[in-house]
């Protein structure tokens, strides 16, 4: 064990990082797997699979009570993302009936399929379209509204604050505006929850108003913290995952043809694409007691950043990690995190991605993205994906 603090220059909020985090990860894993950076008031960066795994699995030593995003977003508490055990498990158990595989398969998936149909109909009727704005963005947002029980046609009001937060930099005027939008979102969720108390329906919001935390009812602030998490977790992330997958399959036509010919590969392929480019590159924990990670002493009170994106490319776990191998198995990637905080919406996300990609490959198999018109994010601090993917139905042939 060493008290040394090997310092690296690491800033995951930069444009260079958003463009190519992978070379930074490879260098960190090889040269400095437990590194200290002075960026954003200083934090430890974990890039190897085993170290990330160990920290993510130990919620007693590594708390989620403070924000798990660096630098803090100040969007307020998100439950149970910012809950430690034992409350974490109690909240998750409350939410589970609306996130279980059975619920997703039986109730949500048919509605997702309808949404995908409608959006693809519209896309097929137009010459040019945007695979993010017209497809990957609205469908997860509307699915999240469906789940919570919010009006489907008001999805933009929810997605706007989420995207405004994830595309802005901490301390910027844009972030200040984004935070005002989040205040509005929280107020709207509070209002809707109150309405559900009077007029219950068959939705997640109603379920939360009736749920019990041990021997008491959930408080209104807890309900809003949970509903806000569902909005933040359900929209930007799945959108990013689908945008990354569509761009990858635009560039790798061999992989696309294979998936079209062998649709039974799709489920494995989705896991592989999530491993390759996870929409959330990392989350932070606060150290609650002096500890040792990867042979380095880390004192209580400091912050650790777990790089899911780097763990997913760790050559000691994934052979040929920088290649997309559609039928890779086993594939113990961490795109949804690992341990007790693992993404509660993973079943929903998988269903959305499966239906969205499957239908694009079936109905729009020759899509071409106009790469010179696409818009990338200028920061990957919160999510890693594309903002705009203008596209056409097929490559133009010479007239």
């Amino acid at each position: 064990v060493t008290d040394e603090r090997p310092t690296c220059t690491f800033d995951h909020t930069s444009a260079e990082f958003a463009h190519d985090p992978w070379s930074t990860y490879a260098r960190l894993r090889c040269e400095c797997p437990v590194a200290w950076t002075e960026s954003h008031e200083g934090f430890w960066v974990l890039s190897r699979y085993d170290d990330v795994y160990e920290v993510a699995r130990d919620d007693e030593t590594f708390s989620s009570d403070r924000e798990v995003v660096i630098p803090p977003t100040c969007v307020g508490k998100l439950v149970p993302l910012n809950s430690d055990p034992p409350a974490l498990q109690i909240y998750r158990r409350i939410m589970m009936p609306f996130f279980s595989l059975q619920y997703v398969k039986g109730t949500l998936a048919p509605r997702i399929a309808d949404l995908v149909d409608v959006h693809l109909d519209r896309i097929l009727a137009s010459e040019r379209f945007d695979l993010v704005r017209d497809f990957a963005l609205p469908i997860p947002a509307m699915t999240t509204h469906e789940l919570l029980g919010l009006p489907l046609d008001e999805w933009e009001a929810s997605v706007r604050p989420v995207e405004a937060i994830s595309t802005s930099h901490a301390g910027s005027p844009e972030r200040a505006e984004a935070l005002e939008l989040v205040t509005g979102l929280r107020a709207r969720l509070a209002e809707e929850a109150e309405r559900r108390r009077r007029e219950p329906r068959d939705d997640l919001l109603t379920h939360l108003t009736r749920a019990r935390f041990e021997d008491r009812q959930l408080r209104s602030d807890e309900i809003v913290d949970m509903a806000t998490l569902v909005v933040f977790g359900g929209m930007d992330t799945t959108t990013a995952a689908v945008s990354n997958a569509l761009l990858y399959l635009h560039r790798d036509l061999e992989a696309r043809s294979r998936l079209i010919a062998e649709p039974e590969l799709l489920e494995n392929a989705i896991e592989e694409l999530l491993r390759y480019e996870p929409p959330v590159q990392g989350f932070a924990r606060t150290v609650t007691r002096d500890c040792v990670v990867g042979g380095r002493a880390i004192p209580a009170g400091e912050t650790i950043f777990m790089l899911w994106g780097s763990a997913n490319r760790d050559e000691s776990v994934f052979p040929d990690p920088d290649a997309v191998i559609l039928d890779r198995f086993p594939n113990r990637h961490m795109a949804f995190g690992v341990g007790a905080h693992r993404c509660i919406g993973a079943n929903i996300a998988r269903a959305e991605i499966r239906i969205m990609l499957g239908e694009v490959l079936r109905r729009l198999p020759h899509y071409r993205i106009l790469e010179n018109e696409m818009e990338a994010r200028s920061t990957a601090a919160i999510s890693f994906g594309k903002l705009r993917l203008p596209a056409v139905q097929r490559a133009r042939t010479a007239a």
Partner: protein
Amino acid sequence: LKVSVDLDLCQGHAVCVRVAPLVFDLDEETGQSVVRIAEPASADLADQAELAAEGCPEQAIVVE
């Protein structure tokens, strides 16, 4: 062959349900894996169970 799931580790990734749908199911309330066939007799199911153990992200499946 005996299959079991360590519920302290299982977080409901559902890889096992995908790989071995006859051997595993998910508990609707907890989201965790449930073993449906604890002692798979056919070689096919046994192979699936081994694959599920290999693929489990939490290494929660024990096949002994």
